[in-house]
């Protein structure tokens, strides 16, 4: 439980605050329109459907303001950098930006539905009032003419019911009204854009055909332009001559309006558009974000080295002026030769101490396949194709260096950030960097098969050799677990069990088959480090996170002099 609070407490708090603001806005505007005196006559025609349309509109304003912010990744990086003082938990919230973006999107979708249904009812009832289907007061209100006669100024009109015509077929009037008013037309267009954005963002589409998702998502430009224009029609109308025209007295005397001094004709006007107040800031920030991405894209990136590893893994060592990274961060790469508009994220596998940054790219789809093809046909020593680099992004994993003893668990593709971490630890160790408090590392590498990760095995081999040369052979203890073994593997290993190095990886430590027996592992760590604080770091599936969390709690001693395990659930 305590672990949950530490890991998720701030996130939960932020969500509670967000939801509270939503509820507050909904209720405030609901009662504003449901109880306000200037809307008494409007409510006579529309009932509470007026409030039911305006309340979600307020929530929509708020959420449309929020939705652009989590995707300004350069802005987030800037915030992250400026808040180095304010604790990692706060900065880690910035890593959950996409989850927040989706949550806000769900709220927008829900509120759009409520807003639209309420307006359907509004239009229908306005239409009926216009045609005299309701009581005398409704008909009188709807018949109010536009007294001003100034056709050019929309807001100088004085009528209440925005449906002015009765010539068209009664059933088609609502449709006609919606498609000929600014609010109606923009409403339909932006709702359509929203629906297309949502259907192409479903997980199946996103994971299989990212391009469809990405290009369709740009309909948000249409959405925001339409949204800003949506409220400019002065359609929600309130009475403004309340002092002269007392509603309680006059409402039963609609035939006398304008004829008796106490009841002049009630005058109505619409409110100005307000949405742009809410969204103009984020829209400007987002435009800056795209401009910044473009500028970064034009900055020169040179290739220091291009290596094609076995199993179609491409390593790129790149140099960019002014580029500074931390361990465990990622960059976005764009290659105009393959696709002008696609940016793909890759975790960096080099350490910050090196004067270049490197990524290992595995063949995993259209873009990566084409990139590997291009690199394969390059002549020796030539520069690769023009590459745009955006980043680095992500919360750095400096916590790893704070613990005397570290248990690092990398599962599958999650092993990639550990390349950066292990290299950095080794560099810091060699120069005796005082920031490094680590004295012993246990590294657990779990994967189905090592095919795509032979480069990582090479890295471990290199580290192994260096450590032996310095007599530091027990600084790093690593274990590899192959969970995708079959009888063939087992036979092969059995035959060669006498050899010094492992047959699969060539490493001194033998490969284990199957999943790790965590109880044994934790016991061993505890035995070898009886008085230390051990930090456990995982980059892998959530199920494993739960297991490790439990083991850390189980094997931690209450006595502060004995071993204690701290679990850091990282999402590298």
């Amino acid at each position, binding site marked *: 439980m305590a672990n949950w609070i530490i890991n998720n407490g701030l996130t939960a708090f932020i969500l509670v605050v967000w939801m509270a603001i939503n509820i507050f806005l909904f209720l405030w505007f609901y009662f504003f329109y449901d109880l306000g005196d200037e809307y008494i006559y409007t409510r006579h025609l529309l009932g509470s459907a007026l409030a039911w349309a305006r309340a979600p509109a307020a929530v929509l304003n708020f959420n449309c303001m929020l939705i652009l912010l989590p995707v300004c990744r350069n802005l987030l990086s800037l915030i992250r950098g400026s808040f180095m003082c304010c604790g990692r938990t706060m900065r880690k919230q910035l890593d959950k930006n996409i989850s927040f973006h989706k949550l806000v999107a769900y709220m927008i979708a829900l509120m759009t*539905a409520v807003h*639209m*249904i309420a307006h*359907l*009812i509004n*239009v*229908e009832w306005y*239409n*009926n009032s216009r045609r005299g289907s309701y009581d005398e007061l409704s008909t009188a209100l709807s018949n109010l003419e536009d007294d001003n006669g100034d056709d050019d100024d929309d807001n100088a009109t004085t009528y209440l019911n925005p449906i002015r015509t009765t010539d068209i077929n*009664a*059933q*088609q009037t*609502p*449709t006609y009204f*919606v498609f000929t008013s600014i609010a109606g037309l923009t409403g*339909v267009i932006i*709702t*359509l854009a929203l*629906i*297309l954005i*949502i*259907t*192409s963002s*479903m997980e*199946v*589409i996103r994971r*299989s*055909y990212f*391009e*469809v998702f990405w290009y369709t998502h740009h309909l948000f430009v249409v959405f925001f332009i339409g949204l800003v224009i949506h409220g400019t029609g002065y359609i929600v109308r309130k009475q403004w001559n309340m002092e002269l025209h007392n509603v309680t007295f006059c409402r039963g005397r609609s035939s006398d309006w304008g004829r008796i001094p106490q009841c002049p004709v009630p005058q109505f006007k619409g409110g100005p558009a307000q949405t742009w107040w809410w969204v103009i800031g984020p829209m400007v920030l987002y435009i800056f974000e795209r401009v910044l991405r473009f500028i970064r894209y034009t900055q020169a990136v040179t290739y220091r080295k291009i290596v094609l590893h076995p199993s179609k893994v491409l390593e790129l060592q790149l140099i960019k002026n002014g580029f500074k990274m931390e361990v465990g961060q990622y960059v976005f790469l764009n290659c105009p030769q393959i696709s002008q508009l696609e940016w793909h994220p890759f975790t960096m596998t080099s350490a910050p101490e090196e004067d270049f940054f490197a990524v290992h790219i595995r063949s995993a789809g*259209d873009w990566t396949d084409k990139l590997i093809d291009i690199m394969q046909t390059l002549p020796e020593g030539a520069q690769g194709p023009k590459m745009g680099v955006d980043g680095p992004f992500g919360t750095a994993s400096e916590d790893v260096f704070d613990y005397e003893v570290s248990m690092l668990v990398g599962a599958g593709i999650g092993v990639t950030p550990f390349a950066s971490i292990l290299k950095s630890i080794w560099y810091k160790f060699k120069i005796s960097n005082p920031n490094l408090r680590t004295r012993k590392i246990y590294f657990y590498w779990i994967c189905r098969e090592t095919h795509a990760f032979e480069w990582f095995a090479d890295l471990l081999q290199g580290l192994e050799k260096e450590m032996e040369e310095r007599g530091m052979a027990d600084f790093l203890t690593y274990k590899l677990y192959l969970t995708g073994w079959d009888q063939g593997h087992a036979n092969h290993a059995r035959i060669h069990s006498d050899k010094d190095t492992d047959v699969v990886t060539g490493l001194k430590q033998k490969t284990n088959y199957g999943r790790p027996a965590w109880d044994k592992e934790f016991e061993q760590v505890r035995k070898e480090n009886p008085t230390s604080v051990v930090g456990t770091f995982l980059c892998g599936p959530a199920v494993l996170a739960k297991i490790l969390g439990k083991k850390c709690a189980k094997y931690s001693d209450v006595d502060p002099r004995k071993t204690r395990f701290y679990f850091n659930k990282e999402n590298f």
Partner: protein
Amino acid sequence: MGKIEWAMWANEQALASGLILLTGGIVGVAGQFRGWQFAAYAIAAGVFVCLLEYPRSKRAKGTSVERTGQYCFTVCVKSFGPLTRNYYVRAFLHAAICVPGGFMLATVLGCVCLGIASIIYLAAAIRGEHWEPIVPRKDTVRPPPADIKNPPQNPPPRPPPETRRKRVEDLEGAAYDNPIPVKD
């Protein structure tokens, strides 16, 4: 964008359109709007489209992810054979279904969304895609190879007894390394 199966997106769009038609229809009928008959039609059309589109097709390439509980719907949809398998039929069917929705405001959005889904299905059909049911995999128990049934008739070949005994003078030449010393 070469490997896209447009039908997947068309399916999501059509399912969403079905729900929007249904919602618009319910609002129209419950509020007794003018032209509520069109709204009633939209309810029926919305339900029909949802039932038709709920079961996802098996993908031509890659893993197919089923929707929860779609198997019964798969069976129903499968039973119509070429009518549901062919995406040209679906494209024109959706185009036809969506038209009455345009006669009333509450169902206009559903009509337009279904129209868009119909266009995407047309694109899918032109590219040669078709609907394939996802059937649960029946793991056939592979029969063990025939020769396992018969145990070997003869013992494995062994060197003659003289060489089998551990010879203390010649440990290298011994055929076995007995863990328990062999007493003569």
